[in-house]
């Protein structure tokens, strides 16, 4: 019996040893070394093209299948449920009154009982469909990308499609996921280790140079850990020292995407646990701005630290996401004015994800961080485009809010996103009462205005 097992044991060990070696060599050659030097073999792009062809085929198959069986193909939620009339408050009230009474009314005069129609209808319209609540749920797709999580039509359509989906599942969870997790650990581990080592060096040019190289290398490994295929446009506008880089926020991955192409000083709150360890070691190598929890509330302190950092031209540009929360990448919401108040040059950056390969939006009320990362790592790929816009500064006579809105409009235009006035904080809080009072004032002005006319005549 023992003789029976021994040769197999040896064989097993040898096989395992060989496969590990092969695995690591491949990893090193194809992923880590290019990451260090910043070159790419182009494998990821080829992968992307192949995937697209498969997705198109899958979608056609579903559509054909649905037609054959006369099923109702549940098309994705398009932009509106209802058609809203763009008439203003005044016009509508005139219309209502004209149809009600026989008097000849040229203007909106005294109060009538029927005025309430307008508000009732508008109110119900808002409940049916409003611009803001839509933005906080993930965007719907037209073609199916073989992930059940993004498909509502997943019925058993054909054997071939199910087999393909099953194969996709095996590849994603069996091959891609372990690979990516290994890479992620390698990347993060290297970052912590190397930055701590560099932290021991005396301050000077050597330290800055090394720190730059190390940061870039580790972020590039992380990028490959997510299989992120990024296209950078207009790199001549990349942020320079002493400036602030602002970008629209869709997920925590945004940081990795931007930081793998340039060096930034990060701003944020110190966390505990693994994040805290990473943060503390990063700050040894180059000056990032981390705040204690208690300091975050103090706006003046925050503003002072930021402006101190900018004054020093040897320090890296600051990276800030002014929306304050993750939006689902179809629109840009209100920018908080804090970072625009400091008086530095602003370098806007627009990030747009291609949702066909994987949905990068982090719905923090639905998923926790670990869950989110697992989802990211088990998608096909993350494809996105980054546009560096030319720098902007605050003009004379412009206050911080106007400047913020100008930057926001530029980012929205470049990235093909919708520019909204609403505050991203609405994801968690309620709207202030001031908006209701605005409408009340408008209506009252209408009534009072005409009464004044009457009393004069």
């Amino acid at each position, binding site marked *: 019996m023992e003789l029976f097992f021994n040769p197999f044991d040896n064989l097993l060990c040898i096989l395992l040893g060989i496969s590990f070696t092969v695995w690591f060599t491949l990893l090193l050659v194809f992923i880590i070394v290019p990451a260090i030097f910043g070159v790419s073999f182009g494998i990821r792009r080829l992968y992307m093209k192949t995937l697209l062809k498969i997705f198109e085929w899958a979608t056609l198959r579903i559509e054909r299948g649905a037609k054959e*069986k006369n099923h*109702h193909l*549940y098309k*994705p*939620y*398009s*932009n*509106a*449920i*209802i*058609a809203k009339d763009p008439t203003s408050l005044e016009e509508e009230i005139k219309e209502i009154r004209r*149809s*009600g*009474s*026989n008097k000849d009314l040229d203007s909106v005069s*005294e*109060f009538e*009982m*029927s005025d*309430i*129609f307008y*508000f*009732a*209808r*508008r*109110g119900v*319209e*808002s*409940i*049916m469909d*409003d611009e*803001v*609540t*839509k933005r906080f749920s993930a*965007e*719907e*797709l*037209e073609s199916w990308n073989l992930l059940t999580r993004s498909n509502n039509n997943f019925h*058993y359509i054909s054997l071939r499609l199910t087999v393909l989906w099953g194969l996709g599942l095996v590849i994603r969870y069996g091959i891609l996921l372990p690979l990516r997790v290994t890479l992620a650990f390698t990347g993060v581990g290297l970052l912590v280790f190397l930055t701590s080592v560099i932290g021991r060096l005396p301050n000077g040019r050597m330290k800055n140079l090394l720190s730059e190289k190390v940061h870039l290398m580790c972020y590039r490994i992380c990028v490959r850990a997510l299989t992120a295929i990024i296209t950078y446009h207009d790199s001549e506008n990349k942020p320079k020292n002493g400036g602030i880089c602002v970008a629209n926020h869709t997920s925590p991955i945004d940081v990795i995407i931007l930081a793998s192409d340039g060096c930034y000083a990060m701003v944020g709150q110190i966390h505990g646990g693994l994040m805290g360890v990473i943060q503390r070691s990063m700050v040894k190598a180059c000056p990032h701005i981390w705040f204690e929890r208690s300091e975050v509330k103090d706006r003046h302190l925050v503003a002072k630290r930021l402006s101190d950092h900018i004054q020093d031209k040897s320090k890296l540009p600051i990276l800030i996401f002014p929306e304050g929360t993750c939006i689902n990448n179809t629109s840009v919401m209100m920018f908080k004015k804090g970072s625009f108040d400091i008086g530095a040059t602003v370098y806007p950056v627009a990030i*747009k*994800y*291609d*949702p066909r390969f994987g949905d990068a939006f982090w719905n923090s009320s639905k998923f926790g961080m670990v869950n989110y990362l697992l989802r990211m790592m088990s998608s096909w790929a993350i*494809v996105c*485009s980054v546009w560096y816009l030319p720098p902007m500064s605050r003009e004379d006579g412009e206050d911080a809010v106007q400047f913020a809105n100008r930057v926001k409009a530029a980012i929205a235009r470049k990235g*093909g996103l919708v520019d909204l006035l609403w505050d991203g904080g609405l994801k968690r809080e*309620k*709207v202030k*009462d001031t*908006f*209701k*009072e605005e*409408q*009340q*004032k408008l*209506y*009252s*002005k209408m*009534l*009072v205005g005409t009464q004044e006319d009457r009393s004069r005549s």
Partner: protein
Amino acid sequence: MGAKQTRSEHDHQDLVEKTGFSVEQIQNLHKRFQQLSGNEETISREHLKSVPALANNPIRMQIIEAFFDKRNQHGNELGSYEEIGFEEFLTVMSHFRPPTLRTTTEEKETMRKEKIRFLFNMHDTDGDGKITLAEYRKVVEELLSKSGTIEQEAARAIADAAMLEVASTNVPNMGPDDFYEGITFEHFEQILKDLEMESRMHIRFLDVNTTKVHCGK
């Protein structure tokens, strides 16, 4: 799976008959319901209060209450719900459905009456079948600014004048000491009888096959 319908499609068929929406519109509204409720089975007042566009509306509390009002459910119950499900949500929405070419005159009359009933319920908050002066004043005050151009006194005066007009139209021989209890549903109907309601109080529901979403470049 063949020709077997999914469970939701089966329920929706019932709702088509009850509310008059098409299957596609119901599916769209169901999606909206789920968005508002955060994927739960019922909606509470808190969910509706958090719709930002509604915040613009001066009578938003009345509108939210209308969804929870039992009188708007085509039954004879009074009072209000704490939470509503999808069927109740649809029933309230169906008050705003426009008439189609196939709607007969009788059906139009019924729809019109339903719409007036909806507005009446919005004013008559205690459910006694009459809009009293106090109740009417409340609505007018909500419509006009509490802090702005029209003062509370002026708002009251407007409400009082409106009530007086209703009283004089409907009870022509009222003496100086008679007390006008409140606007009943019939009086309310009378005031609004010339108003062309069909186009004022409806919302055009789109069918699904409208604009396509373009993602990425």
